[in-house]
């Protein structure tokens, strides 16, 4: 390594990050498990009346045990209504209060895209927040989705856990109770504390819209302000990722210091880590949860290591011009190489999509990993709820493959996995590559699609591929050079986000219903053990082969070709 490469301090940051999260996994898991079981928490004293009041006004019986299709229909109906609300608010924001900078209505294609984007926990943003959204839109049209799409994801994970945990049951829980409890007793209290912390560190929280600055050099600079901290907190905890500002968590008002950055990284993963523990507890063996987390961590650390290594190595094109060191294009000085690389690996593993550096300007292979993380299906920790239910689909495939190898009926955590479950799991998993690759192919030949990329050559293709990958994977990060605010991309990506969310959820809930109805099969000497190293290795293998392999040709056309051009100094 001729140039500045990775440092001990850098690896220490990654190790400390993982270590702290592992220490926080069980506390979060315990809390989630209490909500999963509907137990009373200390917070019920204050918020219990709110919960009961909400049920009463809406005519909800929280004890009603819903069948999987009733659970699904109620979840869809609620989320569809929320998306309509957002669409409506964005279309008329010019007539509503808290619009000090007089932003006009968001156009129909843009509002369609944004409503779906926030509803599906994607938070893909074709617009620039500080130049398009009024403070009311940020709060009422967008922040509520950050809570409720996250709560929906966790509720859905609970439903699947019940499928494994229950025996000969008709129902998989109550959507309203799951969603409301997660919002009131987990997300909201954490966000209140988190918001105050962020404000104390320099994140604005005001209803003012902007302030005029007369700089030391005598120029005028307009700084956009707003209720940033309250949105920032749930943006990270709920793995939403939709920034108040265009530059997202790179913007100093969203993420002012290296310490807030560290806390933001922890908060992306925290609930996802806790859910693996909660799953183990729910199925009666916490080692089942740790085994899943081990497989996720293995995949994550490989990715994070590669991004850090590549970004620290830097860009040979710039080295050739006499600029030594790591790749600082599109990165903030206060974060430097390692915290930018780590953030990129986390946000794409977790379906968050917040960014503290511009992935588009990463080195070719440093940018390949974020893309590949999403293509694996957002199951490497994944979005809150969505990560674990996605990963359990892979676990079903893994026991199926293991069963084929040894010639036994596959079982997983006390449930026989039969043809129905395997078919549904394959259906849910196949949706991803099918939509990503077909839509990318379409956009790569149509003039409206080719008008998008900023960069030329293979990197331009990567920008298109990343957009559809991010949309279908419900991530929301971007190779942001792509001009996505056009009717073509708003429409295509809107549909992509919707399919990527619900065409995984519906088969997953069907599996939950089917599993819940089954008898419990006690573990026997012939059962394939689903804890331990062999199982973890098998899970990693299945995720890489089933999830990743389909994308290799597209990666060869994009980032790999880009890398070969970059190291040979072939510019575009």
């Amino acid at each position, binding site marked *: 390594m001729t140039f500045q490469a990775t440092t001990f301090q850098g690896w220490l940051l990654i190790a*400390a990050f993982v270590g702290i999260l592992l220490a926080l996994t069980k506390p979060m898991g315990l809390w989630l498990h209490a909500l999963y079981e509907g137990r009373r928490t200390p917070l019920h004293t204050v918020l219990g009346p709110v919960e009961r009041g*909400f049920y009463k006004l*809406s005519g909800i019986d929280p004890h009603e045990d819903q069948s999987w299709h009733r659970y699904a*229909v*109620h979840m869809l*109906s609620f989320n*569809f209504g929320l998306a309509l*609300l957002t669409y409506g608010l964005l279309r008329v924001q010019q007539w509503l209060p808290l619009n000090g900078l007089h932003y006009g209505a968001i156009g129909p294609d843009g509002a369609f895209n944004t409503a779906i984007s926030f509803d599906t926990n994607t938070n893909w943003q074709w617009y620039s927040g*500080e130049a398009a959204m009024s403070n009311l839109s940020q709060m009422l049209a967008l*922040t*509520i989705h950050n809570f409720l799409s996250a709560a929906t994801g966790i509720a859905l994970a609970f439903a699947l856990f019940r499928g494994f945990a229950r025996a000969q049951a008709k129902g998989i829980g109550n959507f*309203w109770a799951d969603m409301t409890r997660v919002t009131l007793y987990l997300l*909201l209290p954490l966000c209140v504390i988190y*918001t*105050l912390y962020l*404000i*104390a*560190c320099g994140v604005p929280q*005001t209803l003012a819209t*902007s*302030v005029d*600055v*007369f*700089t*030391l*050099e005598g120029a005028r*600079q*307009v*700084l956009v*302000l707003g*209720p940033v901290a*309250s949105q920032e907190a749930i943006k990270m905890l709920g793995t939403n990722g939709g920034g108040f500002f265009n*530059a997202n968590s*790179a*913007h*100093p*008002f969203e993420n*002012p210091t290296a*310490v807030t950055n560290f806390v933001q990284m922890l908060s992306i993963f925290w609930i996802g880590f806790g859910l693996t523990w909660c799953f183990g507890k729910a199925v009666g063996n916490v080692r089942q949860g740790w085994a899943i987390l081990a497989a996720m961590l293995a995949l994550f650390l490989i990715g994070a290591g590669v991004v850090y290594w590549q970004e620290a190595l830097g860009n040979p094109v*710039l080295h050739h*011009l*006499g*600029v*030594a060191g*790591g790749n600082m*294009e599109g990165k*903030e*000085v*206060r*974060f430097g190489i390692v915290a930018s690389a780590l953030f990129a690996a986390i946000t794409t593993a977790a379906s968050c999509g917040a*960014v*503290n550096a*511009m992935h*588009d300007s990463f080195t*070719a292979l440093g940018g390949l990993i974020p893309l590949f993380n999403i293509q694996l299906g957002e199951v490497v920790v994944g979005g809150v709820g969505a990560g674990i239910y996605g990963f359990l689909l892979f676990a079903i495939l893994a026991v199926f493959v293991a069963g084929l190898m040894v010639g036994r009926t596959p079982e997983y955590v006390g449930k026989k996995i039969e043809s129905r479950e395997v078919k549904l799991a394959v259906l849910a998993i196949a949706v991803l590559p099918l939509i990503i690759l077909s839509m990318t192919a379409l956009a790569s030949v149509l003039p409206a699609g080719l008008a998008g990329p900023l960069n*030329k050559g293979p*990197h331009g293709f990567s920008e298109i591929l990343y957009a559809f990958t991010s949309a279908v994977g419900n991530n929301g990060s971007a190779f942001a*050079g792509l001009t996505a605010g056009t009717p073509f991309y708003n429409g295509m990506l809107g549909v992509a986000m919707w399919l990527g969310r619900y065409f995984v959820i519906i088969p997953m809930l069907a599996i939950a219903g089917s599993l819940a109805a089954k008898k419990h099969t006690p573990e026997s000497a012939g059962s394939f053990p689903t804890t331990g190293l062999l199982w973890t290795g098998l899970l990693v293998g299945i995720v890489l082969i089933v999830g990743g392999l389909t994308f290799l040709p597209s990666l060869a056309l994009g980032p790999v070709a880009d890398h070969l051009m*970059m190291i040979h100094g072939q510019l*575009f």
Partner: protein
Amino acid sequence: MIHDFASSLRPSLVMTGLFAALLGIGYPLAMTGVGQVLFPSQANGSLVVDHGKVVGSTVIGQAFTSDRYFQTRPSAAGKGYDGTASSGSNLGPASKALSDRVQAQVAAMRKAQPGKPIPADLVTTSASGLDPDITPQAAYYQVDRIAKLRGLKPEALRALVASSVETPTLGFIGENHVNVFELNRRLDAMAAKTPA
């Protein structure tokens, strides 16, 4: 299925309204109220007021292009440090536009100060276009130029930079960096005290 849908209408409608009021109005407004009371400076953008005028934010970078100041990094936010248009360049690693931009800047820097190694952050755009910081190397790189133009001692300026360096928390969270706005405020104060 139809029955499931019909039974979802009232809860969906009412819950949307209730949660919108709680999470979309109540929560941000309450946080604004508490934040304004507890942390009024930070909640309003960490602004610095001088003689009744807002001269900057300690959090946000501003453009310094004059040779008499420590200069900030190149910026892709609007025409540079535009607070209404945060953005990176989004140029890819093998982009000719990136290479040309860096090459031109390196050439200018080499001409002004031959033989000095180029700090990477001074020739690359940040992710936000509003990066408030530069590396200590980038600050030291500019000392001789500023000392000459302002008639200050280079050693005094180097000491000013050294005392402005912020180090990583606990030794590993963050990078050594210098806030350019605050450094330049100290530079102005120092120059005002030193007879030219």
